[in-house]
């Protein structure tokens, strides 16, 4: 295991997991702020309970997934792992940002 490979791989994987996590709504937990209640996984609260907050759960989903994948990829043989360029750690977030802007565009054209 080359521990110094973990940080760049984490940064490559994190946005790749975060994007589908927020788009398809896969939170590890849901927080209902009006009731101050936590629910495991996705919990769409009834209207009487107010809005549910999924953002914390998305961060945790992406964080846990990225740590696991980064550890797994860092354990790859030296020759294979060296093929993952560190520059992907900023190229991938920029690409994900472009997709996020497209997803968010209805807010600005509403």
């Amino acid at each position, binding site marked *: 295991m080359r521990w110094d490979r*973990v940080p760049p791989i984490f940064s490559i994987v994190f*946005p790749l997991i*975060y994007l589908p996590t927020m788009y398809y709504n896969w939170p590890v937990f849901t927080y209902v702020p009006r009731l101050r209640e936590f629910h495991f996984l996705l919990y769409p609260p009834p209207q009487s309970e107010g809005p549910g907050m999924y*953002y914390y759960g998305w961060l945790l989903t992406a964080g846990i997934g990225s740590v696991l994948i980064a550890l797994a990829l860092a354990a790859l043989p030296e020759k294979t792992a060296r093929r993952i360029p560190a520059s992907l*750690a*900023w190229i991938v977030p920029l690409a994900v940002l472009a997709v996020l802007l497209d997803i968010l565009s*209805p807010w600005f054209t509403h």
Partner: protein
Amino acid sequence: MPYVLLVHMLLAVALIGAVTHQALGVIAPVTRPDSFFARFRAVNGKGYVNAVIVLYLLTLSLGLFIYPNYRIGARVQMEALRLFARVGTFELKEHLMALGLGLLPVYWWVWQRPPGEQALSRRVVTVMLALIVWYGFLIGHFLNNTRGIT
């Protein structure tokens, strides 16, 4: 809650200062700091790394703590007033903060490399982090002026 918001803002100011010094230093390094702007850039960028990471995590943590008040207060009112673009700017802020969180490990990593190694990645990642922090700061204050958190 206003006190937490105030501390959140003060931490964000410190973070902006640190990451802006570092970003300008890495974009346009100087050898002879003979003006105010040159002195602003003539910093040892590596010395800011841990401070930026700690400040980012602290600022984000307080933001996450305040977030429910925004969600059931300010945002509901902005939606009622049909200020959808403003809500959208905050949505973008939350996603940018997440992307910034994901960038922190590689940000730390590139600054641990020898100066000639990963120079482009160091430059781009630092500037990206600085832009994310600036966006978060400006949008946070813009929306707080629209409808403050109580």
